[in-house]
């Protein structure tokens, strides 16, 4: 799981062009959107696309759970791990 967390941090930085951010800067528990890392709605679209492509998982953005999955890197890692095992 901790590998996946690190992998996701790198993915977020690469996909979203966060040039001044290193993986250590991203707290696994902090909010990705709004405060915390401060990502925007376009980032959400980009990130959703990248996750679907890289892990071959489907994300239903209309589902209320999706908000929870995208809340932090930790949640995202749990979601990716569960989706892959499913």
């Amino acid at each position: 799981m901790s590998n996946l967390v690190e992998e996701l941090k790198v993915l977020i930085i690469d996909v979203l062009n966060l040039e001044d951010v290193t993986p250590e800067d991203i707290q696994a528990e902090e909010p990705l959107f709004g405060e915390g890392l401060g990502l925007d709605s376009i980032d959400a679209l980009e990130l959703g696309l990248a996750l679907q492509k890289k892990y071959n998982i489907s994300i239903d953005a209309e589902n209320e759970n999706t908000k929870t999955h995208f809340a932090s890197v930790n949640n995202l890692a749990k979601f990716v791990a569960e989706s892959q095992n499913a």
Partner: protein
Amino acid sequence: MQWQQVFGYRDDDALLCIAADGSRINFKTFKRDLACACTRLQALDIRDPRAVAALYCSDSYAFCVWFFAALARNFKLVIPANNKRSTVNALGDVQVWLGEWPQAAAGQAVHLQFRPADSSAISAEPPERFTGELQLFTSGSSGEPQRIDKTLVQLLAELAAQQRQWGEQIGDARVLATVSHQHIYGLLFKLLWPLHSGRAFVSRTYVDVAALLRDAEQFTPAIWVASPAQLSRRNLSWPWASGQSLAAIFSSGGPLAAEDAAAIAELSGHWPTEIYGSTETGGIAWRSQRDGNVQWTPLSGVALRLSDTNLLQVRSPWIAGEFASQDRARIQGERFELQGRADQIAKIEEKRISLTQVERLLQDNPCIHQARVLVLPKGARRTRDLLGAVVVPTDSGRAQLQNRGKSALVRDLRQWLAPDLEGVALPRSWRFVSAMPVNQQGKSPRELLMQQFDSNLDTDGRDTPQAMLPQVTASRLLDGDDASVQRARVSLRIPGDLPCLPGHFADAPVVPGVVQIDWAVHFARQLLQVPGEFSGMENIKFKQLLVPQEQAELELAFDRDKQRLSYRFFWQADEFSSGRVSFRHD
């Protein structure tokens, strides 16, 4: 405007909306909800006949009910793009806050949330006419939204033109949207058009295109009211086959890239119908990029001409007078081609962003002395357009950079901006410089600032740390007499706290020679985009010691043919050092 001029439903049973919970709302239910909302507004103790109401709802149906209730109550209805703090502040004197607003917004004013009609409202009658006026905002995500007055008559006049153009193609299709009704395009295409022509809309705003495509098949016939933000971000695994059931895809907010239009056509079977317009003008023209077409066709009733500077001037039945746009264009016969904007307003992901507003907000921060903000276009380094900020920090900003690092300061600055700006208006790339780069005219044009982001030094970690650099009081590019030699001059002062000063001589702090050479290379890379690896130096001379608090000029000349940099540190008649550095490419 009379009730029957607004709504196009045949009878009370006609479907008007598919609510967020999936339930179906017919015209009769809408009339009851509207009557109930009108009763609540009538009950308010507001005597001012021109009271201002502000409306923000995430749910389109709730929005719709409040929209007409407020116009029936003769309020001046203000519809901002978002419910951010800066918006609340900018709205000023508002007597009634309708929908979702931060608690603090209301203050002493009234704050009403939507609720469906209860049984007590059954006897209430919907209003007969709508007299209020409305105000929309330009699609700014900055705190500097421009208010645009509109009347319901104007909005419906445009929809009559859209209906003449597309009515036959879309029939009684249900409307599914990935754009917000808080902007004119969504307000017109998602809500008012279906209401006016007696069609139904899906209340929620889709985030996920896959879900929209599935629902489009379920609710067929349907249309998709989209924008380039979604159409440019596709996943092949989405159920595009369901898109075949769509009657049309509309896109507005900015031009769609040719490859996106073609990709959508291939996936969904529909060439998107692009609508060109603005909050000020409403719809102006349309195009489809089928067969490589780039030209726009004006909507019926729209008259266009070009100004002396080739800016598009627009007249139409739904604009008061002639509107002078900031869009450059070329008119060819009945149609025209757009050629970019003429002003300082940037557009990112369909949102207009006032760069000066972002700069002003940044300059209010105690860490920032001066800030310039620019759009960094999508390209090899970036997967999307985004904002870059070039910042001259104050002393305290400089201290923060040294003690906490760039990443921590950038995070603070983004959080400083966040309450006032939408996400896309927050700068993503940051450069901290000791002085704003200026050209010989003393200006900082975009191209010069751009070099801060697209020079080689920002990606490979070769750059000199900020703490090791002198304080720059001015820097400029000089005109060369020889095209292959580029020149620049940097005015600098040696700070007393430079970490490299002690240690060289026991009692006399000086700038070591190797640091001077590094500065020459640093500023050459920054100002002249010198590429390649350092490969050698020659003719290095140290004539006088460079000491703290001293002023100096650094002159740089880079010979592109020889890949050789000449530098000279001097002040008036005194020369501190000079030399040549060569570079190689692997």
